[in-house]
């Protein structure tokens, strides 16, 4: 329990630090949100009035203070760029990014677990070599280029995929899959290499442990050895790697959303930086951090529950 509380408070510290780093960066970035929106021909009177109305004439530290005190009452403020409540914008976008992230993870799981098991049974064979190399190539391709090539190759050939934009699930299931599948594949491909290698190694390690030899000597079938014992024991490290991948996947959505014109977090984030939309970037960064940190936290917790020895040791996951 103490361990749980300690982890939870560290999590809050992390979230606060991220927010503070964002503030510090914004303190030094040049650029004025209203002028960026209105462009070079902006009417001076209009700029002045709008800045006054939005409270942008105050120093950033005051704006940050106001924003912070809002956060404690559950109000993330209004976006400057979109003149909408930040929480509303985030609520609109979060599903798209999460669907995309989970779909990518699902693809990674569906590809790498079977492949990992398959290869772990025949390590260092030609198949192993070929698969490791192929997945590594997937890791090395710049994601936006991969997205473009997929779009050109698959998107243009099959009507099923929509090239640009997002179709909500509530509107059409196939449409939603059509709009999310290509970007999800684009995000998944680089991650496949990492988790494939990891899963393969973990299962291999397990297979070489003494208990496997013992079970085998008892005459249990190879299949039962693999699925009843080895996989179960390998589950904890495998879980960890998906936790690590989750952060990567969330980061991957940023550029890929831009390529496929998906209205998720990524494009909102890029916009909020280039438009110096302080309340918006604070809100998004806070959400992303919370999602990533919470996922890691849950995995740590699972880890601790599944393997009680960990609580004894200091500094898990560090």
């Amino acid at each position, binding site marked *: 329990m103490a361990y749980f509380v300690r982890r939870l408070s560290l999590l809050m*510290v992390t979230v606060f630090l991220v927010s503070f780093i964002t503030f510090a960066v914004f303190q030094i970035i040049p650029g004025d949100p209203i002028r960026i929106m209105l462009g070079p021909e902006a009417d001076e009177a209009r700029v002045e009035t709008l800045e006054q109305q939005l409270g942008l004439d105050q120093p950033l530290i005051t704006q940050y203070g106001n924003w912070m005190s809002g956060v404690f009452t559950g109000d993330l403020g209004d976006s400057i760029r979109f003149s909408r409540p930040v929480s509303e914008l985030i609520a609109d976008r979060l599903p798209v990014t999460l669907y995309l992230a989970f779909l990518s993870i699902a693809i990674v799981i569906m590809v790498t677990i079977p492949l990992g098991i398959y290869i772990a049974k025949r390590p*260092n064979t030609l198949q192993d070599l070929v698969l490791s190399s192929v997945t590594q190539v997937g890791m090395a391709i710049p994601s936006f280029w991969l997205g473009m090539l997929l779009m050109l190759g698959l998107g243009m050939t099959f009507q099923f995929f929509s090239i640009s934009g997002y179709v909500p699930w509530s509107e059409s299931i196939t449409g939603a899959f059509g709009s999310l599948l290509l970007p999800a594949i684009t995000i998944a491909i680089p991650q496949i290499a990492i988790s494939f*290698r990891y899963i393969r190694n973990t299962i291999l390690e397990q297979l070489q442990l003494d208990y496997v030899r013992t079970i085998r000597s008892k005459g249990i079938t190879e299949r039962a050895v693999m699925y009843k014992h080895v996989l179960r024991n390998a589950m904890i490290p495998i879980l960890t790697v998906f936790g690590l991948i989750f952060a990567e996947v969330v980061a991957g959505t940023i550029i890929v959303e831009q390529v496929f014109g998906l209205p998720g977090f990524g494009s909102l984030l890029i916009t909020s930086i280039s438009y110096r939309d302080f309340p918006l970037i604070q809100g998004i960064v806070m959400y992303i951090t919370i999602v990533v940190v919470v996922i890691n936290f849950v995995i740590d917790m699972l880890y601790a529950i599944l393997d009680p020895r960990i609580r004894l040791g200091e500094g898990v996951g*560090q």
Partner: protein
Amino acid sequence: MKQIQRHGKNINLVIGSSILLVFLLMMVVSFFYTPYDVNAMDIANKLQPPSAEHWFGTDEFGRDIFSRIMVGTQTAFFVGTVSVGIGMIFGVLIGGFSGYFGGWIDEIIMRIIDALMAFPGIILALMLVAVFGSGMVNTSIALGLMAIPGIARIARSGFLQSKDAEYVHAARLMGQSQVRIMTKHILPNVMSPLIVAASIAFAVALLAEAGLSYLGLGVQPPDPSWGRMLKDSQGYLASSPWYTYAPGVVITLMVLGFYMLSNAIRDISDPRSR
């Protein structure tokens, strides 16, 4: 069994390092010779498909793509080396210090590193580029800063594990200074995971530069950068596809080279991960 294993390891090492050697060679050559002046425009001959005169064709300004790819190796190695250099120097300093001395300083540093790592890297890079401006040097600095937390974390765990090792105790008993213990005794022992991390950081820097280029930031023309070329070629994907293949393939190859190298080093130095 053993045979094949060694063979498998070598393949990563052989392919990885030969890719990188070819690029190094290309870079060296590009300092003295390129088929065409990299920036010389010939607008009448823009977007020519590959031919005997222009091996990889010409771009939208009629510049020779092959020459630009060659000179692009300079940019790639510059961005990679500078950013990995920054990441290593500060990462090892911060992580080593944090791991070796521990205590509340370690706690604070780790919290900041956690925070930075929870932050998607590209966002940090975007914000840093907004602060420093784009261009080759500034991009390298921004990407270097981005690499610090990851390297610091690896350095820290290495120092944390080694600080109570026998040989460190022995060195302490011999009255050696902390600095000497850290640099002469611990550092060489934690070097291999750091080299692996540096090799990966190099690959990540190349991809991140391409990502920044896609967003219009990153290395700026006329400095030929593969990421930039890839972004520029995007508009000609359907009409002049050869334009996109050259930069896309060289980025992929170089990144692959570094990944393979990192895997090879890991396999050699850490026999457990077979």
